[in-house]
């Protein structure tokens, strides 16, 4: 079977961006070829964004729809801010992968399937009654249906691997064909394979042979090679990073910048665990990780770390963050530095662990008990994950306060090329520990920041006792005095509010600082909002994009900036949590755009929401 149908783009034409989605069984090596296409595209002077989707079952039976793993790559010759609303090409290595991913392919898009897997048994597993290649299901698409399994076996025949190991190379055969179609250089992938399988040369050779065979196949059929536009990349050293890697590195950098030991204490949970895994591999550079017995122990250990003078960080996702709430209040009361990372997922309860959501903003802002103010930050891209990790440490150490840093399943797992910052050029976080026994009092405050004095065990003469009981404002001793509690409540609130003085002025990410409409977002809606606003501004619509990193306190000028717009649109992957907060802060012209599907916003959805709010004259 070798079907080529549909309309093909004219030979030699140039496209600005391309979205390729790979899908297959979880054992098919989809994630590997997806990230290789990412690397090859970065080498081809493309900007790009990628996103993996894993099946929620650990080892689902082969060929089932719930065992499908996918990886989407969006690359091209302009700044890439999203993973792409729709795919131009779908590579589906079995019928179940086709079935579960077809809705993401654009009409008229290209489908590459392995017809060798298109058997009656697999149709049944995927829920097809007949071959979708023949029953009209795929009308209107361009279909490439070589028997990849067979062609792969042929291409690696002389290497001498057994049949099973040989078949495992078929992902690279498919990748070879994709490389041919989009003019990608095979060399970086060949080098990667040689390095990866240095200890198993036959496997490297076989995968390279399959890659080359797939590439050669492109020339023999009428598959068209497309020219993809290029960008002029900024000079610098790049790495291809995920949000959790950048966050891990940001925390490690913050430890270096502050001269403190980073102790990261966490309990496994999807999608937060990769942060623990990444940091665990940094023990040789002085990072300590601790896998606690539960989330409560994890935050309590991090608090103990800070009490002892280290940089205590804990991390989880929604359900685990809920368990940490009581201890957060201890850190508020004891006024100890602490970073709590929440990689949000779809809730409530177990919800959809592998799907993304921004629904824990309220938990961050209003969790805990009593009046327990703390700082809240959010990161919306790998680069922001790095920066906000350092910012969280700066605030925590400078103001002696817990800080919640919000990430989510989408930011954490998506990746893009990133120019590595020079850590030596970043401002240091110099917060000294008190070591002067004369008239030492742990609740003396810095008049500027209102941070309390921090003396750590090991310091002679500064021995002191603190805890969660209310402290006397002047002496730090236990106090149940009514007026004192008022005063301490006020000072804790003032301290957090005062952080605003140290936050950079908020400027629009795009567009003018006043006008008819501003789209205000936080966290991982950054990409789709930014692309939508760029697209509409290119069409001469007057719309601005304002992106918030600081959610408590807000930048000092935020109120004034938002007041300069007639309408404010707030897209969020929740039911309107930031929107409600902005309204509570006196911003009456806020309109919420909400999505709770476990999937990020599409650019088109945001564009449409913007357009419906602009008068014809706004163009």
């Amino acid at each position, binding site marked *: 079977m070798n079907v080529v149908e549909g309309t093909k783009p004219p030979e030699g034409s140039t496209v600005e961006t391309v979205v390729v989605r790979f899908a297959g069984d979880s054992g098919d090596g989809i994630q590997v070829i997806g990230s290789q296409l990412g690397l090859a595209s970065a080498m081809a002077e493309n900007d790009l964004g990628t996103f993996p989707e894993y099946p929620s079952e650990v080892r689902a039976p082969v060929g089932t729809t719930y065992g499908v793993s996918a990886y989407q790559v969006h690359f091209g010759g302009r700044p890439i801010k999203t993973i792409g609303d729709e795919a131009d090409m779908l590579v589906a290595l079995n019928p179940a992968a086709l079935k579960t991913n077809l809705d993401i392919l654009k009409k008229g898009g290209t489908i590459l399937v392995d017809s060798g897997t298109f058997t009656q048994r697999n149709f049944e597993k995927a829920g097809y009654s007949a071959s979708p290649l023949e029953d009209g299901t795929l009308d209107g698409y361009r279909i490439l249906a070589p028997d990849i399994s067979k062609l792969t076996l042929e291409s690696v025949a002389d290497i001498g691997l057994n049949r099973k190991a040989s078949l495992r190379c078929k992902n690279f055969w498919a990748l070879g064909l994709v490389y041919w179609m989009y003019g990608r250089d095979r060399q970086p992938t060949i080098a990667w394979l040689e390095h990866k399988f240095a200890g198993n040369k036959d496997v490297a050779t076989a995968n390279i042979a399959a890659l080359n065979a797939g590439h050669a196949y492109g020339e023999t059929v009428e598959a068209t090679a497309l020219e993809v536009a290029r960008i002029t990349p900024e000079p*610098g050293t790049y790495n291809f990073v995920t949000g959790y890697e950048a966050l891990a590195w940001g925390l490690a950098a913050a430890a270096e910048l502050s001269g403190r*030991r980073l102790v990261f204490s966490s309990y496994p949970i999807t999608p937060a665990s990769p942060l623990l895994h990444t940091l665990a591999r940094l023990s040789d550079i002085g990072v300590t990780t601790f896998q*606690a*017995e539960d989330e*409560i122990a994890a935050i309590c250990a991090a608090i*103990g*770390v800070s009490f002892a003078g280290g940089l205590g960080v804990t991390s989880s996702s929604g359900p685990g963050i809920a368990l940490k709430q009581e201890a957060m209040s201890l850190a508020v009361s004891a006024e100890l530095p602490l970073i709590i990372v929440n990689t949000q997922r779809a809730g409530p309860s177990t919800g959809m662990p592998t799907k993304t959501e921004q629904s824990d903003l309220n938990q961050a802002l209003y969790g805990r008990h009593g009046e327990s103010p703390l700082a809240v930050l959010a990161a919306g891209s790998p680069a922001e994950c790095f920066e906000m990790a350092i910012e969280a440490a700066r605030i925590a150490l400078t103001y002696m306060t817990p800080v919640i840093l919000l990430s989510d399943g989408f930011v954490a797992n998506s990746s893009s090329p990133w120019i590595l910052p020079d850590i030596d050029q970043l401002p240091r976080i110099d917060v000294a520990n008190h070591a002067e026994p004369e008239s030492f009092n742990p609740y003396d405050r810095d008049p500027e920041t209102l941070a309390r004095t921090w003396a750590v*065990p*090991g310091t002679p003469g500064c*021995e002191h006792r603190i805890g969660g009981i209310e402290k006397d404002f002047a002496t730090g001793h236990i106090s149940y005095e009514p007026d004192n509690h008022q005063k301490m409540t006020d000072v804790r609130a003032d301290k957090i509010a005062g952080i605003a003085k140290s936050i950079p002025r908020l400027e629009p990410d795009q567009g003018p600082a006043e006008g008819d409409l501003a789209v205000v977002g936080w966290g991982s809606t950054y990409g789709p909002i930014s692309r939508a606003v760029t697209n509409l501004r290119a069409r001469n619509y007057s719309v601005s994009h304002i992106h918030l990193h600081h959610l408590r306190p807000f930048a000092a000028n935020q109120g004034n900036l938002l007041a300069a717009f007639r309408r404010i649109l707030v897209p969020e992957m929740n039911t309107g949590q930031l929107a409600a907060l902005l309204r509570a802060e006196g911003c009456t012209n806020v309109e919420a755009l909400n999505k709770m599907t476990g999937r990020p916003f599409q650019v088109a959805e945001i564009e449409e929401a913007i357009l419906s709010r602009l008068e014809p004259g706004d163009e």
Partner: protein
Amino acid sequence: MNEQLTSTKLTAADFATDQEVRWCPGCGDYAILKAVRTVLAEVGARRENTVFVSGIGCSSRFPYYIDTYGFHTIHGRAPAVATGMLLANPDLDVWIVTGDGDGLSIGGNHLLHILRRNLNCQILLFNNETYGLTKGQYSPTSHLATRSPSSPGGSIDNPVDPSSFALGCGARFVARGVDTQVKQLTEVLKAAYHHKGAAFVEIFQNCIVFNEDVFDGFTAKANLAEHQLQVEPGKPLVYGTDGSRGLVFDPAALGLRAAELSEDSANDVLVHDPGNYNLATALARMTNPEFPMATGVLYDDPGPVYTVQGAQSDAAARTDRTLKDAMRSGFSWKVDRKS
């Protein structure tokens, strides 16, 4: 100046703070406080290097009364907070103070894990068989049929024995003391201090307000000899007035038997060996009045202390790789400035 502060020999009084002690008059906690201060002085503890960490409860007020570093945390979580302190600074001398409710109810999980990890610290569990601070509800150690505000008809939950729990968790040092038996208590605390790894000490503490004399069965003067066995390493496990009773091995039960000693059976009496886990377990599980209550160091068999990459084994774990190198790992590439 710092030199002087650390090298002067301190007395028990030097470990007192300026805070007024707020326990009820007659509470067993006072005697424990005194014993701990004495031990700190005797072992030459350095104030600046010592941290007392507690949860919530009457017992957990303890840190306010010891002039070292102290952290009165939240209910049940002191072992977790202490773990973090030791991760950040393994050289600290950390004492955890907890209660039967704090350590075995809300915080049972953390107690289990600090013991099996074997972090280097002392854990003092004040067992008064009640929730003192919240006004006398029955606790996880309350014996069956304890009448309390929350169990007016008598408690129906089986109690847990703290020392057996600790041994089951893999603790390498388990001891029992009694608030009123100062001499033994100080010896036990000193042994705990010198043990490398987590040292668990259960202290029978009289709550005179909500559970007065609940331990009288083996602590009252009249009952001491017949109902308490103060174990000592290398000494025969005998008790009773004139040492007339002793523990012998009962092969049928694979356990201990309390025997009336005669000329012949005296040779069969077991000798206390704190390195013997099975013996320690059997001693801990003895219940009064069928058996005497065993007190003293039941088990002391040091094992590997928890070390963590990047923390205690710093030197070993460190390579000359830097964060910059780590950030360049994997898919790193360079784009040169175009001329």
